[in-house]
């Protein structure tokens, strides 16, 4: 208690684990709902809740423990087969998972405390389901809550109790199988206070076992390292419970041991082929003791300590084709701050490398010299380091995708539509921040797709489509960006209505000539909403303009293509990272500036006759039947007083996040480049019209233009033409 810091740190890890567990819980439950679940899924769901409970107990989070306990009790009934898992039950379980997540969030200090009534209501529901039509089911023995010790949430003890009823329940059915288990614990397993004896005893509950001790790896006493594990066991178990049940015994030690479970017939040859077992009498003794007493601990006594050296261990094991249990990827948890520091340093390395390359080329070294070749290698390596470092921050979009099935069900229920969600490319990776900030826009788009895109089942049948609509969500990498497509097979965009609304709201002129694409894109304009009646689902005063803004704030683009009667496809394209930016390097008044590529619609060379002046000043330029303000960047940034003479320079037509367009006049465009974003605020302060800075290959700082800021500023200035900014 006094050692607050390590305790808090462990608690932090617990909450991180909770996030993962809740994710597993949800996806498991969803699989159960669609009927794609097997026994292992149900077990995984149970384990997730159980682990949350175990950890919560260690930290004295009583509300969480109480709720998780009731939840877990029902799940235990289901997984043991005493309680059927029907549709109603799964729906309740899904809602319970929601409340559990709320409890976790509340315990973490995020979000409001859980509404006690809601929680209690669900507890009652869960209890009814548990006891209701299964009166015989004895309440599951609740595990003693783990002590708040260093290993706080190792919920090992409970599992023993939970497995007890299992053999009884399944004994009658299914034929008896023989399984050969080869188990070699690592030292860490003992360090976490697990014991082989207990595991073997647990295994013996599944059916008669024959245990063989393999102590061939045991070194001489003189070389014995008391805390290193080198004993292993081969166990043959006869059980009707199946492989899953056998594996489950080792569930909590899986990461800390080599485990193989195979049908005994297969393994028979292996046994013969492994004459490495020298102490046959001991093995026999062990086997007998294992069967009789189901408590091999006393037998273990002859061995000096249960944990012994590992030095020679690989040898006998190499002889056995024992496949490693499940190849779980090894992961570590690292502070995000450390990763970001690394990313910063690598960013500097990239710049430094570019500078060095430029200096060398300026110094006039011949191309074939060793220096140039070395520099090229250095560049390749630097890029590789940069990519690898960026990959550390990358996360699969799965965390966002897996929230959507629930949303789809809820919206489908509310609208009375039938919807099937298909997701693809969940493993596609993108920067963590991007993943986090994608959830909201995607949620909104899925809602829209169901609410506005899909027809009601009757309407669908009437036009010859299946009653069930399909919403498809696909993530993929395309040319250095992540692309997310959300499509539906609904009615598509009703162009005449969209147009009507846009005219009505004064968003476009009544006689504007617009292509189909342009009409479709009107839905991104601020304040546009196509729902006939403001519905509960998507009519919340926010429209696609908000979606577009949040995508653009991530440096992304959104577009729509729609076919009447066939459906619509929304395409999001986002950068893989926020640390670098695709920019257009331009020159204005001798200054090198970078314009974010995402803002640029198109660039053009204005002719003198294209430029007009509204009211004598305020130049505008004609761009595709539309007049947009022409802003001289050199003047706007205060680098020169007089604008470029008409007919010179290049204009970039840019679009702000709010959809406003303007043309930025610069002297010349140098080219497209990926730049590392550097903050001006760190050592200085925010500068109007400047989003950030970057460092170019020549080592100079270049400013990244804040397109929105510049346009807003120009608008303010032209509104008050006599107002001069002090410079």
């Amino acid at each position, binding site marked *: 208690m006094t050692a607050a810091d390590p305790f808090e740190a462990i608690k932090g890890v617990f909450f991180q684990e909770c996030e993962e567990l809740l994710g597993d819980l949800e996806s498991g439950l969803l699989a159960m709902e669609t009927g794609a679940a097997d026994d292992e899924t149900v077990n995984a769901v149970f384990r997730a809740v159980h682990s949350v409970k175990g950890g919560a107990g260690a930290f004295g989070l009583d509300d969480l423990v109480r709720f998780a306990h009731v939840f877990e009790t029902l799940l235990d009934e289901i997984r043991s087969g005493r309680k059927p898992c029907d549709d109603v039950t799964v729906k309740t379980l899904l809602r319970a998972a929601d409340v559990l997540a709320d409890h976790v969030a509340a315990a973490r200090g995020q979000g409001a405390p859980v509404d006690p009534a809601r929680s209690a209501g669900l507890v009652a529901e869960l209890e009814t389901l548990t006891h209701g039509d299964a009166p015989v089911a004895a309440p599951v023995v609740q595990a003693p809550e783990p002590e708040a010790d260093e290993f706080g949430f190792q919920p090992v003890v409970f599992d023993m109790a939970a497995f007890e009823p299992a053999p009884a329940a399944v004994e009658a059915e299914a034929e008896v199988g023989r399984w050969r288990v080869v188990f070699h614990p690592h030292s860490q397993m003992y360090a976490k206070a697990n014991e082989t004896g207990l595991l073997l005893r647990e295994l013996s509950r599944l059916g008669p076992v024959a245990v063989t001790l393999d102590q061939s790896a045991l070194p001489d006493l003189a070389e014995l390292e008391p805390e290193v594990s080198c004993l292993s066991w081969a166990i043959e178990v006869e059980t009707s419970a199946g492989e899953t049940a056998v594996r489950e015994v080792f569930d909590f030690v899986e990461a800390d041991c080599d485990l193989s479970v195979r049908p005994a017939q297969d393994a028979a040859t292996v046994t013969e082929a492994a004459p490495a077992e020298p102490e046959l009498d001991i093995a026999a003794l062990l086997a007998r003791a294992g069967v009789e007493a189901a408590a091999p601990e006393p037998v273990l006594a002859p061995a000096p300590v249960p944990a012994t050296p590992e030095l020679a261990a690989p040898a006998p094991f190499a002889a056995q084709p024992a496949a490693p249990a499940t190849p779980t990827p090894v992961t570590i948890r690292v502070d995000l701050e450390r990763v970001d520091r690394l990313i910063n340093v690598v960013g*500097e390395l990239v710049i430094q490398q570019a500078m060095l390359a430029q200096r060398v080329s300026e110094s006039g070294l011949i191309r074939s010299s060793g220096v140039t070749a070395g520099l090229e290698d250095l560049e390749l390596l630097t890029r590789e380091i940069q990519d690898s470092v960026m990959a550390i921050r990358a996360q699969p979009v799965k965390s966002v995708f897996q929230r959507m099935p629930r949303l789809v069900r809820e919206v489908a229920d509310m609208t009375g539509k039938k919807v099937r969600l298909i997701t693809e490319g969940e493993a596609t990776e993108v920067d963590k921040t991007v993943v986090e900030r994608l959830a909201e826009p995607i949620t909104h788009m899925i809602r829209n797709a169901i609410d506005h895109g899909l027809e009601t089942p009757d309407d669908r049948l009437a036009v010859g489509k299946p009653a069930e609509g399909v919403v498809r969500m696909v993530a993929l990498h395309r040319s250095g960006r992540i692309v997310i497509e959300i499509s539906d097979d609904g009615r598509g965009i009703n162009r005449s209505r969209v147009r009507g609304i846009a005219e009505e709201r004064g968003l476009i002129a009544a006689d504007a000539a617009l292509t189909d694409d342009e009409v479709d894109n009107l839905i991104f304009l601020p304040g546009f909403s196509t729902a006939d009646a403001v519905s509960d689902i998507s009519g919340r005063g926010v429209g696609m303009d908000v979606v577009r803004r949040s995508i653009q704030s991530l440096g992304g683009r959104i577009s729509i293509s729609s076919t009447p009667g066939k459906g619509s496809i929304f395409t999001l394209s986002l950068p893989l990272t926020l640390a670098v930016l695709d920019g257009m390097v331009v020159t204005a008044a001798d200054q090198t500036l970078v314009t974010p590529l995402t803002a640029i619609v198109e660039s053009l060379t204005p002719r003198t006759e294209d430029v007009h002046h509204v009211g004598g000043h305020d130049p505008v330029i004609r761009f595709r039947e539309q007049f947009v303000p022409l802003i001289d960047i050199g003047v*706007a940034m205060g680098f020169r007083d007089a604008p470029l003479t008409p007919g010179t320079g290049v204009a970039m037509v840019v679009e702000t996040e709010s959809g406003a367009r303007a043309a930025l006049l610069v002297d010349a465009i140098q080219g497209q480049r990926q730049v590392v974003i550097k903050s*001006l605020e760190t*050592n200085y*302060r925010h500068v109007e019209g400047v989003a950030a*800075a970057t460092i170019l290959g020549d080592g100079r*700082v270049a*400013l990244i233009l804040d397109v929105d800021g510049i346009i807003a500023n120009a608008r303010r200035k032209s509104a008050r033409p006599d107002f001069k900014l*002090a410079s």
Partner: protein
Amino acid sequence: MSDTSANAPARELIAFRIGDQEFCVDIMSVREIRGWTPATPLPRAPGFVKGVINLRGAVLPIIDLGARLGLTTSEPTARHVIMVASIGGRSVGLLVDAVSDIIQLTDEAVQATPEVASEQVRAFVKGIFAIEGRMVSLLELEWLVPDTEAEAA
């Protein structure tokens, strides 16, 4: 080089020239001294902010100290010097004509700023002292950064 009386705890100051005047700051606040490199000008910055330069990947604002003190505005050349100082957690480059000396000094040797100096100078000068017949002004760096002060202007 200058020595002061032995017993009092001496602190080290770094002295530099702007025009014909000599100033000094606490050596602990100076991170490094480097030659002038062309700065990228910032839009609508106060006149004493020369722009920003790249200091090993960090964006460093450059303040023309002479202009900041209301003395001279110099067009920087390769002979000018940038003192990289840490002021209130930020790194700032101070453009001066030349670094002249490292001085060890006790607090007693510093006199209050005479009433004759201009308001602007008195805002930054903590005190003055004489050394080998020269007059050196001790600067207070905290007020130099164009933060809220400049934003209000």
